[in-house]
């Protein structure tokens, strides 16, 4: 059965070149590269916005911007980082790696795949256009509600809210298309012998992510549609005068928003055990336990949403339910952490950049997880809610747990993608700068939050000054050190030491059986997995 070939309707010679190649491509690697490039660009756009915020917070008082603009930067920073940086990065890796890892010729629905990517640039335009329009006197800038769109503020807001609503719609369509494609690819394109329980962890992570996206993104689309009709067509979904309820929006939003956390993290959780087994040079520990834990987290993630607004008002039984179910998520996560550490145990480990990022990731994401457990406590949450403690917590999960994981994956697979080795010294420098400045940025924010500094406020009381100053300096260091990352990627793409097919001594899996870089059509002959 290993005679499968791609129908060669797309010969090398026929490729359009230049911009048309990228506009029209149906090739999973081209599309993956576009996703990753887009994510990297938007990572810097979102990063520049937050550096503006940190500059404003360098010292008390209003220095650089008015509060409205401050609010706009915060909301758009979050939307860009979540929807236009982290999610496209994960989808980019899915496009690149899933066909390689399961031995497929391409993604199952190539044209749909192209559409999924090309919805992203219009969404990015919709998110950032209001800033430009405001410069020309049209409207009052982007949405100023934070990324969560809570009514009634979002119903009163200007055209920035409408732009954000439609941006979310397009991003949602893109995510649903990507998820359909990944689910179909995983179920229908695996090589002979590649049973579900032999799939690499990254493929498992993405499969569950795709199910979560299918279940929750349409709910977000529904919620922001109700917001749109409340804004312009006189419905009263979120208006008590008509029998609606602003808190209903919070329920609908977080029914999407909590699974979204795991949508961002599950693909990364798939990277981790693969990188660990490569650089520990021994098979991963507890494959089945990790797969079942992924499922456990995936299922639990859709039934815990209200812990994001314990303080909004809920009956006590509901509070207790959401507290205990949230805490239950730490059980499958503990299983995963145990498996990851046990994978390294007694391995002959070496610490190339991907491994450094992964080990750093385990520690930092561990802090993110443990502070989440603290936040899940209803009684304690009243103090933490809407403070800088929560800001620090979700940056430990989403920057350390998300973006640093993506960086680990980037260094891990970059030689496979480009065919060249990156600069190891620069990579290690990038890791240490990132890890140290990240901690210096966000550890002070835990203390600021515990001391009562509220988030999303451009000014603060004098006693918070020192820690904010430290945080701002570290944030700029963190931002600037990412330039090393770009430099390393660009030079690696342009040339350098040739990478072997296996790249890493301990690397296991189908993607390492292909040459680096892999041929245009990944597996023209499907391999047989034993």
């Amino acid at each position, binding site marked *: 059965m290993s005679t499968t070939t791609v129908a060669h309707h797309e010969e090398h010679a026929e490729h359009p070149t230049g911009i048309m190649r990228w506009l029209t491509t149906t090739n999973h690697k081209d599309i993956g590269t576009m996703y990753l490039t887009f994510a990297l660009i938007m990572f810097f756009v979102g990063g520049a916005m937050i550096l503006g915020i940190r500059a404003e917070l360098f010292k008390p008082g209003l220095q650089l911007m008015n509060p409205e603009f401050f609010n706009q930067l915060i909301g758009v920073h979050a939307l860009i980082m979540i929807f236009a940086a982290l999610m496209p990065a994960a989808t980019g890796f899915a496009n690149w790696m899933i066909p390689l890892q399961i031995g497929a010729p391409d993604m199952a629905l190539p044209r*749909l795949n192209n559409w999924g990517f090309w*919805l992203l640039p219009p969404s990015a335009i*919709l998110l950032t256009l209001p800033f430009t329009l405001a410069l020309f006197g049209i409207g009052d800038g982007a949405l100023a509600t934070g990324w969560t769109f809570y009514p009634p503020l979002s119903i009163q807001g200007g*055209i920035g809210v*409408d732009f954000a609503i439609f941006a979310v719609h397009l991003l949602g369509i893109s995510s649903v298309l990507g998820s359909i494609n990944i689910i179909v690819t995983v179920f229908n394109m695996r090589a002979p012998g590649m049973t579900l329980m032999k799939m690499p962890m990254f493929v498992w992570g993405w499969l569950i992510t795709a199910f979560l996206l*299918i279940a929750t993104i349409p709910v977000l689309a*529904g919620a922001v549609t109700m917001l749109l009709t409340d*804004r312009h067509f006189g419905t009263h979904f979120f208006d008590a005068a*008509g029998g609606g309820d602003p808190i209903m929006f919070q329920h609908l939003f977080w029914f999407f928003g909590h699974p979204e956390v795991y949508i961002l993290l599950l693909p990364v959780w798939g990277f981790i055990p693969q990188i660990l087994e490569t650089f520990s040079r021994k098979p991963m520990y507890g494959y089945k336990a990790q797969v079942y834990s992924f499922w456990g987290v995936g299922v639990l993630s859709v039934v815990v949403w209200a812990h994001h607004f314990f303080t909004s008002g809920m009956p006590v039984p509901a509070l207790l339910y959401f507290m205990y179910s949230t805490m239950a998520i730490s059980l499958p996560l503990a299983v995963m952490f145990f498996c990851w550490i046990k994978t390294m145990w007694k391995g002959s480990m070496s610490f190339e950049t991907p491994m450094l990022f992964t080990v750093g990731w385990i520690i930092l994401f561990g802090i993110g997880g443990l502070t989440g457990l603290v936040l899940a406590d209803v009684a304690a949450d009243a103090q933490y809610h809407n403070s800088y403690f929560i800001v620090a917590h979700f940056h430990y999960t989403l920057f350390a747990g998300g973006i640093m994981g993506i960086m680990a994956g980037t260094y891990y697979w970059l030689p496979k993608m480009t065919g060249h080795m990156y600069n190891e010294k620069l990579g290690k420098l990038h890791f240490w700068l990132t890890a140290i400045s990240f901690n210096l940025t966000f550890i002070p924010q835990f203390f600021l939050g515990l001391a009562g500094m509220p988030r999303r406020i451009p000014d603060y009381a004098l006693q918070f000054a020192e820690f904010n100053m430290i945080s701002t300096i570290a944030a700029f260091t963190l931002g600037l050190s990412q330039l090393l990352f770009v430099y390393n990627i660009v030079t690696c793409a342009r040339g350098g030491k040739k990478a072997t097919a296996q790249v890493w001594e301990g690397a296991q899996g189908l993607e390492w059986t292909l040459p680096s870089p892999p041929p245009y059509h990944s597996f023209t002959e499907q391999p047989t997995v034993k």
Partner: protein
Amino acid sequence: MATHSNNQYYVPHGSIYPAVIAAGLLSLASGFIFSVATDKSKDLAYLQAPGKWMMILGAILILSMVFKWMGAVITESVTGQFKGWEDKSFRIGMIVFICSEVAFFAAFFGALFYMRVLSVPELGGYDLDITPYKDFLGTWPSTGPGGMTVSGEFKPGTLHPMAAWGLPAINTALLLSSGATITWAHWGLIKNNRKQLIIGMALTVALGIAFLVCQATEYHEAYTEMGLTLRSGAYGASFFMLTGFHGFHVMLGTIMLIVILLRCMKGHFTPEHHFGFEGVAWYWHFVDVVWLGLFVFVYWL
């Protein structure tokens, strides 16, 4: 996985349609925003006209590209590019897509249940000494304590809900029988009885159009005679958004059914190979099931 009936997977040529559709969506969305911008800021009234043109441009781009894209898929299908392996991809993809549609409707059903079970009774249950809504009972159907809207103004009043056993019951019968006729047509296709196939499809299309006509009549009555509008509080919002999105899906489904009918008349599809037909049939059954939910929870109970 291991047993593909063919050993070649069809990877289509590069295609410009998706990128143009994305550009069309950008034009449609920003045009829409401009055309309603005046709702929130009177200064932006001058954006209305350019906004309308951007919407028209976007819609033209999207529709023409969808037309060409679907045309390309049909050509690939009739020239035999899709065999068992690709067919299975389409099947799984369609099932997952329908699941995402279920989640979309779930959001609106969720909003209906939330308002009906939680927020409206709560608004009616406050202590009389503190509530501003002293006469509000919190029963369903409700326009909320603020009253209802008459000709654009929000005024206190009573609400007459849409009765279940008039047009809605007829609509239920229409959609249920359309589910039967499309299955009958499918049997015809499997038996290679083209006449039964085409009659069955034509009947299904006719029933779909009849449903849409009834729905339009019902909306007309609601707006002109009953004073029931999108602005009529919790009931009006959930009623029109749920039935409206469903009606929109019926419209899309009917257009897809018409395309399939025309393809049947041109002699497309074989008893073994007819995913296009089945995909649309699945979609139609999905729309049918959503309607049953609407009939029970929006109209009847």
